């Protein structure tokens, strides 16, 4: 089995595992469908936007939840945005924590919110890691394909 076939197999397996383990859902597939020759880096670009957005929002949440008197509306607003961007790229597990997080905000439950912040940070770093690994595999495959002489 040549390296391209091997890498292709690895990529398929890895991607499938991400879906099976619930890290990604069908929305990610939608993004892949939008990528084409006129938009060759679409998925990476949108996912990068998600990374930037999430990091900013997580920092805002840290600040908001560190106050003496919690402004739940402010916290909820940040979580709403995080839920939106995670659902846009299909980051299912992050999205799910955000849903629970919003419920705690509505109930004005401080403990619940603090727990959710920890959880959402955890899920975010997991999916970030997974996606970065996925992109690296894709790059390796592209490079391997590129080095094969045309027949």
């Amino acid at each position, binding site marked *: 089995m040549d390296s391209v076939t091997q890498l292709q197999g690895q990529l398929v397996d890895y991607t499938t595992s991400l879906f099976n383990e619930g890290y990604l859902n*069908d*929305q990610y*597939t*939608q*993004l892949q*469908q*939008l990528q*084409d020759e006129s*938009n060759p880096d*679409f998925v990476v*670009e*949108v996912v990068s*936007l*998600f990374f930037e*957005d999430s990091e900013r929002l997580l920092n805002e949440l840290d600040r908001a939840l560190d106050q003496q008197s919690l402004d739940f509306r402010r916290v909820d607003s940040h979580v*709403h*945005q995080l*839920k*939106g*961007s995670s*659902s*846009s*790229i299909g980051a299912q597990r992050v999205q799910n924590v955000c849903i629970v997080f919003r419920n705690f905000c509505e109930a004005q439950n401080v403990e619940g919110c603090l727990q959710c912040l920890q959880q959402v940070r955890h899920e975010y770093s997991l999916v970030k890691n997974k996606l970065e690994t996925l992109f690296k595999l894709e790059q390796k495959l592209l490079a391997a394909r590129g080095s094969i002489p045309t027949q």
Partner: protein
Amino acid sequence: MVFGASSSSSKGMTSIDKRNDGNNNFVAERNLSALIVDDDLIVRRIHTTLLTKLGVKTQGVENGKKAVDLFQSGDFFDLVIMDMEMPVMDGPEATKQLRAMGIGSMIVGVTSRNLESEKQAFMGAGLNDCYVKPLTVDDMIAILNKLNNN
């Protein structure tokens, strides 16, 4: 211009194929234009790319007021994709204002939650339809086919 929905073999995904494959295709009589109204940059990016890929000339703004301003300044769009929750002016308010101005464009609302009560309230502002965001390829094709038929 043809909007087609053809299913590919795996997972029943719809491929965006501008060629006429004989399945559920309509030919647009003219070039369509769309306005994406959403405060979320990622959603705007996705919806813009989706519509552009389907051959629709697309512009994006981040709140309802900017949308209303554009129409007031004489710009016209066949289709408006209107987010519900936005700062400055939200979707329902912007929709009401556009309808009050006599704008007959197709206005499709998008909400982040699939709550019937929310969608009904938003529809009441004057929408033609309401979906949960982000819109899928199938959603967009359905919307454009409807627009084409009007």
